[in-house]
């Protein structure tokens, strides 16, 4: 019970700080919208190539906006020393990780809620089907799981803005490919597609388990 209460307390604190500072959500949201607008004008969208281009544009916007936010949430705590103070508390390190992960998922989800309708309008794709929800959820979970863990490592270095994408991008490639292909499959039905959702789920379970086990060592050393 204490474990859940601690997660809830840290999450509440992060949300309240973000609602007041608006640093992360604003920059993430604006960045995602900007990427979608630029892609919309950059590509010559036609009915026959839309399904190939649109899912990529959507997930590029999500991935880059997510990294912007993932870097901020941990870095701001490290810079102010409040992460040290949190580490002094008798809190299970897994609770800290899960709270930060849930916070990051929430921040990314808000951006997705803003960006998805804009994407649907700009790219003229009917995306508001129930099938998109698990794709976005699993994709976001995968990005946030790895991003939360590695943002702690990157935050401890001086070149954190450079290091975070270098560490995260190679690892999230499988889940991003899965998300792009699964989103594309919603637009144009195709045969012999691998079970992308299953692959994304497996990826998320594996990396969530590994991150939970590793976080204590990453944050304390």
């Amino acid at each position: 019970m204490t474990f859940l209460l601690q997660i809830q307390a840290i999450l509440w604190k992060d949300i309240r700080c973000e609602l007041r500072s608006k640093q992360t959500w604003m920059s993430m949201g604006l960045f995602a919208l900007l990427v979608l607008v630029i892609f919309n004008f950059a590509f010559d969208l036609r009915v026959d190539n839309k399904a190939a281009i649109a899912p990529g544009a959507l997930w590029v916007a999500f991935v880059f906006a997510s990294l912007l936010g993932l870097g901020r949430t941990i870095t701001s705590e490290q810079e102010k020393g409040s992460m040290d103070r949190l580490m002094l508390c008798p809190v299970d390190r897994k609770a800290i990780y899960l709270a930060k992960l849930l916070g990051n998922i929430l921040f990314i989800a808000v951006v997705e809620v803003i960006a998805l309708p804009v994407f649907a309008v700009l790219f003229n794709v009917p995306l508001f089907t129930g099938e998109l929800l698990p794709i976005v959820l699993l994709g976001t979970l995968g990005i946030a799981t790895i991003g939360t863990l590695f943002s702690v490592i990157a935050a401890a270095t001086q070149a954190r803005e450079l290091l975070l994408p270098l560490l995260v991008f190679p690892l999230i490639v499988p889940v991003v490919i899965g998300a792009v292909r699964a989103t594309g499959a919603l637009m144009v039905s195709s045969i012999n597609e691998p079970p992308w959702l299953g692959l994304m789920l497996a990826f998320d379970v594996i990396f969530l388990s590994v991150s939970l086990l590793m976080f204590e060592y990453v944050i304390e050393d």
Partner: protein
Amino acid sequence: MSTPYLEIKGLKKTYNLKPILGGIDFTLDKGKCMALLGANGAGKTTLLRILACLIKPTTGTVHIAGLDFGEEAQQIRMLVGFVGHQPNLYDDLTVLENLLFFGRMYSVKKARERAAILLQRVGLARRTSERVGTLSRGQLQRLSLARALLHSPQLLLLDEPDAGLDDEGIALLEELIREHAEQGRTTLFTTHNFDRAVKFSDQVCMLSGGRVVYQQASADLEVGSVRLAYQEALR
């Protein structure tokens, strides 16, 4: 002979092969107060951060209330209250929200009442709903003290707690240290003020180059002799 509350044996810490602590040994009994003196870079902050379970020593053992640092860190964290150089508070939360958050982290019962009492005690009762980012350095230090005392710690670690405090704040700090000792609780504080070190401690311990170079009971000491020992240690 009773077991010391705090027992440090052969404590060493190196950063990037540079020795910061070169083998610290000392004990502190329950209810006693120790002043830790030393020039900048002597290893005082590193020692306190190790005792607060914030960093791990390279070698050596630490026992607090009989608990082993390596294996029972979570229980030790529950016993320790820490005030560092920096306030390390959440600027976007209010004064009360900060204390309530840490109250939940330490599972403090009736945290709101406890926070109200402490805020009254440190003179911030009228600023409970103000954001921490708007407080002055001295007020932040007072709030840090309140936060450190929130869970009624058995061992209070204070790293230069007088930094940023005005005369009134320093008087308050001295009262809090005295009250803490009167409740049979243990205190370890670092300072650069020799008068304060001798006046408010039961023992004075001096670090130089990451080693204990001087340790005396405060009752037998005069400020002049401490100052002399400090100057010798610097040479």
